[in-house]
């Protein structure tokens, strides 16, 4: 088998190669979806298919059209960032037909605990409670309007919103120090925390008030040479102020 000047081996290989290419093309024609690649490296038909799925959430604006009273109250409350359906569940069908389909009304305690039960991983400043000691048994809505949850009394303890820090500190060497020894805190911080932030120590000298060799603090407080201990760095570069460790 020899075609012109091409040796037989090559002709045979070429036949195998062409046969495999044909198979590949056939398989391609059979398996690659028609709309593949029209808009990107995916099947373009999938977009209308997804768009055709039934809509289950209506969005907050839709609710506000009829429940403007609730929407208005909520808009200036602590819960202004939450959507209605985050608590009431998907309610597009209710918007379609308000009387036939009514959304869930989550009046149990669990629905709030989803966000407010203490969890060390939540961001600092987020109001958290320990369910078993925060007015157990009573429904939350009895004291907090879910749409305007301002507590009946302003939280007194810093731990209401900074529990992770508070519990860390309570078992640290700084257990005896009050938060406000180091953070001068305006009363308003408890009501509108972000708008009225407390102070934080800014300079090394602050810690020196108790830890400098010449400081007038209890004799049990360990002392360092402020001039050269830790170089020029702020002390909290190396010691976490809420759980300081002095021995490596």
């Amino acid at each position: 088998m020899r075609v012109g000047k091409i040796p037989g081996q090559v002709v045979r290989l070429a036949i195998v190669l062409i046969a495999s290419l044909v198979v590949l093309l056939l398989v391609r024609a059979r398996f690659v979806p028609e709309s593949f690649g029209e808009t990107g490296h995916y099947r373009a038909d999938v977009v209308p298919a997804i768009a055709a799925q039934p809509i289950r959430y209506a969005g907050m604006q839709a609710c506000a059209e009829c429940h403007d009273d609730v929407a208005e109250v909520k808009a200036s409350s602590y819960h202004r960032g939450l959507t209605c359906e985050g608590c009431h569940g998907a309610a597009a069908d209710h918007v379609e037909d308000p009387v036939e389909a009514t959304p869930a009304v989550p009046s149990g305690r669990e629905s709030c605990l989803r966000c407010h039960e203490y969890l060390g991983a939540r961001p600092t400043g987020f109001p958290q409670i320990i369910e078993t000691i925060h007015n157990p048994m009573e429904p939350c809505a009895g004291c907090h309007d879910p749409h305007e949850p301002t507590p009946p009394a302003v939280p007194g303890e810093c731990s209401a919103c900074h529990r992770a820090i508070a519990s860390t500190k309570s078992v640290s060497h700084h257990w005896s120090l009050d938060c406000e020894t180091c953070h001068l805190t305006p009363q308003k911080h408890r009501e509108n925390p972000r708008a009225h932030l407390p102070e934080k120590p800014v300079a090394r000298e602050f810690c020196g008030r108790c830890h400098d060799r010449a400081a007038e603090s209890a004799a049990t407080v360990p002392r360092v040479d402020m001039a050269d201990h830790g170089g020029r760095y702020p002390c909290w570069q190396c010691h976490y102020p809420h759980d300081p460790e002095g021995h490596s």
Partner: protein
Amino acid sequence: MNPLYEHLESALQRVSGFIYPNEVELHWGLLVVIYPYITGLVAGAFILASLEKVFRVKEVEPTYRLAMLTALAFLIVAPLPLLAHLGHPERSFEIFLTPHFKSAMAMFGFVYAWYLMVVLLLEIWFEYRADLIAWRKQSRGLKKLLYWILSLGSKNTSPEAIAFDRKAVYAITLIGIPSAFLLHGYVGFIFGSIKANPWWSSVLMPIVFLFSAIVSGIALVLLLYYITSMVRRKTPDMPCLNKLATFLLIALIVDLSLETLDFIHRLYESEESIEILRRLIFSKLFLSLTIVQLLLGTIGPILMLAFARFSRLPDEMKRLVYFVAAALVQVGIFSTRWNVVIGGQLFSKSLRGLTYYKLELGGVEGLLFGVALLVLPFVILYVLVKVLPPWEDTRPSEST
């Protein structure tokens, strides 16, 4: 208690420092260790075989065909760990149908197919063609049919045709060397290009991978050549073994230098990750990196090979030393892959904590399956050797 929590609880006792929740459990396990190990063997064995053809290193000729078959046997197994790890192997062909040119991982199929079809199979076919024709003539029945299919019905054994075969083999080898570099350099690239991971992200990665591949390939062929000679009750060809040992030694030294360069470079740069990497090396990876990879798998074999190669030991002793050194090298390269793949996932992206890896016994990601995958290439090689005997002394055709 919920078994999920129980699992998490026991896992959390093993992590130290700060770990993000999705880092506790490793995503790439033993299978992803085996994958670069096997492709490395393929590339290494092939590069060794190419030396003979391209640079005409006559001494290693007895291993040429064995090396090619070894490369083929391991190449067939190379994608299996990935298929098993990803699941849904039946969908894997889709990456050929809709090639995605911007994804390095998706391009692997093409690198692999190119290497298998255009390089290895073609080269083996041209190399064996005359022999296939001769074997077909000698055998009967099904075997005859098999050789007929394998030779694609080719009959021409004229001197011109055989001369053409030789030229073809030479040409393919020339394409093959960069392709082998591509195949394994690519695997290194996958790791080296993950910029979020300081243990992996390094431009040297493809080159380090390549040289460790060459090391492991040469060592494997040396081992196989030695073992097959013993099984066939032949004395291994000493100049050939000596040459292999020299190559292995050189490759080991280059490999060690590259790794050291990488290491010094990291130390000198001292990026913020250096602290956690130091902890990693001295705790979780101490055994597999310092002891196994560095001492047992690299420095040990270098000393042994250097000593045996240039000393006046009797040949039997030399062979034994080579054998032990090559076996140690295999263990060392395996732990190299382990240290890259597993090591790279043992520390947190926060650079503040370490997690752990516990190898299961059963299951797809387990030890038994991994061992099976490592044994499989040898089974395939056995079959290949039966069908296509690579030995010089049993060649039927006069094409040598």
